[in-house]
C-alpha cells in the first residue's frame, strides 16, 4: 500500500480548534448541524452525456457522465454496468499530486459508487440493448477542482446531479433517438467528523485536518441506509453512530430538496 506523505497541521491551529470544540464552536462559526452553502449547477458541459458542478462552501467538484456500449457481465446478461472514478488533481490543492489515483481517491470513488449502486439509482435493467451482447456502460468521473473539505458529500451530490440530467446517446451509435438515462431516486450522502468528542456535519478542511474519525452514510428517499463508510483511526461508540444516522436523516431530506429543484 502506498503511504501518503505526512500531513502536518500546526500545533497552534490544532489547539485553537480543540479549544473551540470544547465550547461547542466550529472554526467558521457554524452550528454542529449546519452545512455550508450548497450550490448545484446541472448540465453545463457539451461533451458529457450529463454533468454537474457542485460547491459546498469553497469545495468545488465537477462530475461528468459518459456512456459507451459494451458487453454485459456473464452473470447479468440483461443489465448495464457502471463505473465510478475520482481524481484529486493538483489544481484542487497544494497537497495533491498528479499520477494514478492514490488510496484516498480510490476510497472516495468506491464510496460514491456504493451509494449509487446500492440505492438502485441507475435502473440497470433498462440499459440493455441486446441481451448478452450489448448494454450501456455508464462512466461517472469525479474531478475535484477546489478542495476545502467534505469531498464525500460533494462528489456524491455531483454524481447524482450529473446522472439526473444524463442522456443515453443512442444517436451516436445509430440506434435511434437519444433517451434520458433511466434513473430512480438518488442516494444522499452525509458525512460527519469527530474531534475532541465533538461530532459535526460537513467538515471543512480545517476540521478534516484534526478529525479523529469520519462517518459517511448514504440514505435513500425512505430514510433507509444504503451505504456506510467509517474512516480514520478514531472510534465511535454505538450510541454516537445511532445519533449520527438520526441527524443525517434531516440533512438528507434538505439536500434531496436542493437536488430536485
Amino acid at each position, binding site marked *: *500500500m502506498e503511504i501518503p506523505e505526512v500531513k502536518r497541521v500546526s500545533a497552534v491551529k490544532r489547539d485553537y480548534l480543540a479549544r473551540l470544540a470544547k465550547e461547542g464552536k466550529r472554526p467558521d462559526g457554524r452550528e454542529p448541524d449546519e452545512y455550508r452553502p450548497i450550490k448545484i449547477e446541472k448540465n453545463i458541459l457539451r461533451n458529457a452525456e450529463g454533468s454537474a458542478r457542485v460547491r459546498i462552501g469553497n469545495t468545488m467538484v465537477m462530475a461528468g457522465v459518459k456512456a459507451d456500449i459494451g458487453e454485459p457481465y456473464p452473470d447479468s446478461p440483461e443489465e448495464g454496468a457502471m463505473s465510478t472514478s475520482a481524481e484529486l488533481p493538483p489544481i484542487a490543492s497544494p497537497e495533491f499530486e498528479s499520477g494514478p489515483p492514490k488510496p484516498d481517491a480510490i476510497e472516495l470513488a468506491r464510496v460514491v459508487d*456504493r451509494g449509487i449502486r446500492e440505492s438502485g439509482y441507475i435502473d440497470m435493467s433498462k440499459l440493455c440493448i441486446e441481451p448478452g451482447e450489448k448494454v450501456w456502460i455508464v462512466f461517472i468521473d469525479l474531478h475535484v477542482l477546489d478542495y476545502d473539505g467534505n469531498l464525500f458529500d460533494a462528489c456524491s451530490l455531483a454524481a447524482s446531479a450529473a446522472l439526473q440530467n444524463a442522456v443515453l446517446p443512442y444517436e451516436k451509435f445509430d440506434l435511434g433517438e437519444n433517451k434520458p438515462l433511466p434513473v430512480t431516486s438518488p442516494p444522499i450522502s452525509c458525512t460527519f467528523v469527530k474531534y475532541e468528542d465533538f461530532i459535526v456535519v460537513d467538515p471543512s478542511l480545517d476540521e478534516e485536518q484534526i478529525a479523529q474519525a469520519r462517518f459517511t452514510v448514504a440514505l435513500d428517499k425512505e430514510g433507509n441506509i444504503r451505504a*456506510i463508510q467509517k474512516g480514520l483511526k478514531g472510534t465511535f461508540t*454505538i450510541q454516537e*453512530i445511532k445519533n449520527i444516522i438520526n441527524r443525517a436523516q434531516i440533512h438528507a431530506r434538505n439536500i434531496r430538496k436542493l437536488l430536485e429543484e
Partner: protein
Amino acid sequence: MKDGIRIDGRKPDELRPIKIEAGVLYRADGSCYLEWGGNKIMAAVYGPREAMPRHIQDPTKAIVNARYNMVPFSVEDRKRPGPDRRSVEISKVTSEALEGVIFTELFPRATIDVCIEVLDAEAGTRCAGITAAAVALADAGIPMRDLPVACAAGKVDGTVVLDLTSDEDKEGDADLPIAIAPRTEEILLMQMDGHMTPAEFDEAVELAIKGCREVSKLQREALMNKYKTFEVE
C-alpha cells in the same frame, strides 16, 4: 433460509467454524494463520522499524501500514497479481482500524507493517484479515490498548444474520462488516452496503458485536496456546 436455519445449517446468530494459530512464521516479527469458514489467511507483522524512505516518516508517531492482498489462486477466476481498487480500499480501512488501538506515539519515525495474505477466499475476508492481523500484532509484541476483532452481520431474505457465506453475500440484501476494540466495544471499522432500515441496522450492529465477542475469545485462546506451547517446550 428455512425454519430459521440457513443453507449451510447455521442459526441466524451462528458463526462459521474458526481456527486461529499464532506465531506460525519464522522471519516475521509476529504472525497468525486463520481459517474462517472457507477463508484461509496468513497475517504477519514487521516492526516497529524505521520508516523508509525518510520523507514518509512522522516525527510524532509510527505509521501503521496494512497491506491486504489476495493471492492469484484464492478466488474462482484467477486474479492478476498486485493491488486492485478493492484491495487498496480494504488496505486503507484496515490500516486505520488497527492504528486505532496501537500506541503509535511510542514509536516516532517508525513504521509497523502488517501483511494480510488471503490464500483462499469465501466471503468476509476483510474481517478475517483484521482478526488475524490483530493476533499477529500481539504476537509481535506491539503495544496495544486492546486486541481488535472483526465480524460482519448482514441481511438475507429480510432476516438479520451473522457472518455471511459467499452465497448469502451474493444473494443477500446487505452486508455490515465491523471491527471493534472489544473491551469498550467502540467501533474501529464499519462499512455497509445494501439496504437496511435504521431498526435493522441497530439489530445488525448488535449481532455483529456479539460475533466479535465470540471471535475475540478464540483470538485470546490462540495467543494463550502459543505461550503454553512455549512452556511445554
